């Protein structure tokens, strides 16, 4: 069966595997030989529905298969960790922010490379410098976006801010936000996004995947892929 999420036992649906105060919510549906896009979408939909009536949800990484015995073993062996993680996300949803820099990027890059190939001799003597200056501006943009997100992290209602990816072509961040302040924080985040140069989008709310996704490999950490299972 597919493992969907760990939740508090008292809010778990009937088909869950319960051990003490924890429950592994599962989908007993057919398991194909490969994880398909359809299955991933089904997983996301099921977790989203769970999040509407469970205060705390730790989504399992999509495509994770477990037997009932394995699910019980995971719940037993990592119960303290799961209780802590559930406490971390209880009553919270996630908002996302994705930013890409002002669109000088690919075109300007192609232009520079064309100069470097010697197609256009004018200005070819400054190509290397121009490249570095463009990169310096792009890294500065990324640093500024990260600083803005971290500053936003102290807003009332924001429990945590996590930068998921940072580089000169993209910055991705997620915020763990208390449900009671969700609408206000989203509005404030939209305002922040409007002030950032480039293309910036705000997404969510959705279950706190970036803060609590269980990874059966046990190799991830909370700041990267979530709590390992």
């Amino acid at each position, binding site marked *: 069966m597919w493992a969907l999420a760990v939740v508090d036992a008292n809010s778990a649906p009937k088909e869950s595997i319960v051990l003490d105060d924890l429950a592994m919510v599962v989908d007993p549906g057919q398991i194909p030989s490969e994880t398909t896009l359809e299955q991933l979408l089904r997983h996301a939909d099921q977790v989203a529905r769970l999040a509407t009536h469970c205060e705390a949800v730790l989504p399992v990484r999509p495509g994770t298969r477990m037997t009932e015995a394995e699910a019980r073993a995971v719940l037993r062996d990592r119960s303290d960790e799961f209780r802590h993680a559930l406490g971390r996300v209880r009553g919270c949803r996630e908002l996302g922010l994705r930013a890409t820099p002002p669109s000088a990027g690919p075109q300007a890059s192609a232009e520079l490379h064309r100069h*470097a190939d010697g197609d256009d001799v004018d200005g070819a003597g400054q190509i290397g410098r*121009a490249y*570095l200056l463009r990169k310096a501006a792009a890294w500065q943009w990324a640093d500024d976006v990260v600083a803005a997100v971290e500053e936003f992290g102290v807003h009332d209602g924001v429990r945590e801010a996590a930068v998921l990816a*940072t580089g000169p072509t993209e910055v991705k961040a997620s915020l763990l936000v208390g449900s009671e302040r969700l609408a206000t924080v989203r509005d404030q985040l939209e305002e922040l996004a409007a002030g950032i140069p480039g293309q910036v989008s705000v997404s969510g709310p959705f279950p706190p995947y970036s803060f609590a996704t269980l990874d059966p490999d046990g190799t*991830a950490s909370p700041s990267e892929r979530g709590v390992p299972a």
Partner: protein
Amino acid sequence: MTQASLPGLESVAGDLSALLDRADQRPQDVEKGLAQLVLSLVELLRQLMERQAIRRVEQGDLADEQVERLGRTLMLLERRMVELREIFGLEEEDLSLPLGPLGRTV
């Protein structure tokens, strides 16, 4: 510094382990996965070099010629990475590595 304090390396080790688990079933996946891991590390180093070069230029202690040469070298390196990505059918975001509290590389 121990491995436990290097989340990027932990992730690489985990990914290598997963690759080995699949090695007898899907060899073509393993080849692509290994290329992805290697290129991710190279891309991380390339980005670090780029940032270091920018710092040196901003400090102003490089001659114009050196700045030009450095910039051209890094530009060609970036182009080569794009070519290698295309060879293995990888997108830029496929070369992302988790760096713990610093987030991931892009």
